[in-house]
């Protein structure tokens, strides 16, 4: 038993220095200020406010050139002016029209591909080979080719958008369908579901978290691709169809070229606003009405 350490028996002792137990704040009224700072939105809003004030102060005090970093107030004024007097609203509409067109067509093609992939083993192999190959390819890299094939116009942008939507959506939907549990499949068959109703009533709801994930990734890629495409070739795309066209990316780019830096920031704000709107309002609403309500995903 040489491996065992020797047992040490400690001497017993009494601690004399313990004071009497005093009751601390177990529950107390929070002060007004504490209550206010416990509200999530108040804290976040004040961070935003502090950032804005810091920006304004920095530009006023350090005397940084207006061309490098304009004052926040100038930017806000520029945003207001471009929205009201300039054609920023039309540009937002142009961008969104192209985006929605590309996204919708992309979804249709992705649906067809996924359907083929579920029905046959060969289709499934074809889809996984294609997605493995084309998903890592940034859609914007196809824009030069698209311009060659479809000419300068929104057709080329829609083509690149298609490419950025189809692969993530098809990949995620396919993975989602493949991982629907056998129990659920058998329940569906037990109800006598076949063909299209089987897909619509059983497979799609069961795979919805994954499908939604694909839709979100597809949106993120499409949005980035669209802005990049407009930045690169916005002028070329705009020139073909009159002066009042070109999208948000073009708004940013052309203002940068004319050194209208407050307007550049205004364009960036608009891009952020549209992005936040789609992500936090549209997708969050879809989520809370479907996967969260069905208990498939915790908030």
């Amino acid at each position, binding site marked *: 038993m040489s491996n065992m350490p020797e047992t040490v028996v400690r001497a017993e002792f009494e601690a004399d220095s313990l004071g009497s137990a005093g009751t601390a704040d177990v529950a107390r009224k929070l002060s007004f200020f504490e209550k206010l700072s416990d509200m*999530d939105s108040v*804290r*976040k809003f004040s*961070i*935003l406010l502090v950032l804005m004030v810091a920006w304004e102060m920095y530009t006023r005090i350090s005397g940084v050139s207006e*061309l*490098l970093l304009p004052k926040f107030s100038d930017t806000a004024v520029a945003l207001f002016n471009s929205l009201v007097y300039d054609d920023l609203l039309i540009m937002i509409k142009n961008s969104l029209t192209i985006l929605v067109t590309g996204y919708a067509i992309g979804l249709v093609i992705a649906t067809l591909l996924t359907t083929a992939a579920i029905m046959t*083993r*060969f289709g499934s*192999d*074809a889809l*996984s*080979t*294609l997605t*493995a*190959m*084309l*998903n*890592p*390819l*940034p*859609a*914007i*890299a*196809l*824009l*030069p*080719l698209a*311009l*060659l*094939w479809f000419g300068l116009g929104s057709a080329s942008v829609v083509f690149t958008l298609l490419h950025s939507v189809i692969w993530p959506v098809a990949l995620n939907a396919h993975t989602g369908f493949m991982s629907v549990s056998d129990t659920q499949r058998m329940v569906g068959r037990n109800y006598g579901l076949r063909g299209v109703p089987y897909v619509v009533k059983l497979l799609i709801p069961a795979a919805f978290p994954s499908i939604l994930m694909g839709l979100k990734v597809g949106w*993120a*890629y499409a*949005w*980035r*691709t669209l*802005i*990049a495409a407009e*930045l*690169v070739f916005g002028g070329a795309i705009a020139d073909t169809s009159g002066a009042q066209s070109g999208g948000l*990316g073009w708004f*940013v*780019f052309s203002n*940068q070229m004319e050194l209208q*830096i407050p307007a*550049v*920031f205004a*364009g*960036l704000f608009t*891009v*952020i606003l*549209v*992005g*936040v709107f*789609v*992500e*936090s309002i549209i997708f969050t609403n879809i989520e809370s009405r479907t996967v969260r309500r069905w208990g498939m995903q915790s908030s």
Partner: protein
Amino acid sequence: MSTDKHLPDLVIRPEFVNENIGDAHTGDVARELSLIEKIWNINGVRKATVLLGLIVVWQAYTVLMDVQPLMFPPFTDAALRLWEDLFHGDLPGKIWFSIKVLVYGYAAGMAIAAVMVLWGTSSRLGGDFIAMATAMFNPLPSIAMLPLAMLWFGLGTASLIFVLVHAVLWAVALNTHTGFKNVSHTLRMIGENYGLKGVGFVVRILVPAALPSIMTGMKVGWAFAWRTLIGAELVFGASSGGGGLGWYIFENSQNIETAGVFAGLFMIILIGITVENVLFRNIELKTVNRWGMQRS
């Protein structure tokens, strides 16, 4: 007996004997597969066939239909062009340029994200700041920052790196922060029980426990960074000295050397597949899959 009204009448079907059933006979329960079936059952073979089929269709279409090579060159032209530029041309230099910028930007983005998330886990203000900043900047395509970056940092690698940092930072910070928040209390208490505090607590408990989420963030960050880099080089590649893969594509498309454009696209696909299926796959196999946190 009012409840009886709701019940339907019982129908008793007459008994019958089905005369038409033949003898039960056993079909193929198990049989030797033929050689072709065996080969067709190998996953790799089927996928290679798909690839080969695509290439053959491409080649046949362009050769038989007499498509203008300027619009759509045959596959062989593109492959030859890739071979030539890769071994006798300046393509390796351009690839190296792109990858160098990408690695700098990615590393810087990760470092900033790490600092930010540390602040976010240690104070409520930091957490709010991360939530606020990611909600605002994550939907902003980083390429939109490029015009500003060029104004601030001039035409050069610095602006590219700034944009890449922006692409990586928010995706990684968002996913890591969410991952940290979702680490279970049991694991946290175990860490505290071991006397871990501060950085030790983060490195030994939070990071391993949140690694699946961190990996997701790193993969999303890579995807955005890769797309941003190619986009940025397409737009302003020449001005940033040397130029990378995106510039190679742009140059070729300006010279209407479409075979060169396809060669560039092949290269981008190859690098993308290497990073996603070799690099990240291996990291996952050695960490989250080995630790049993995620099924392969």
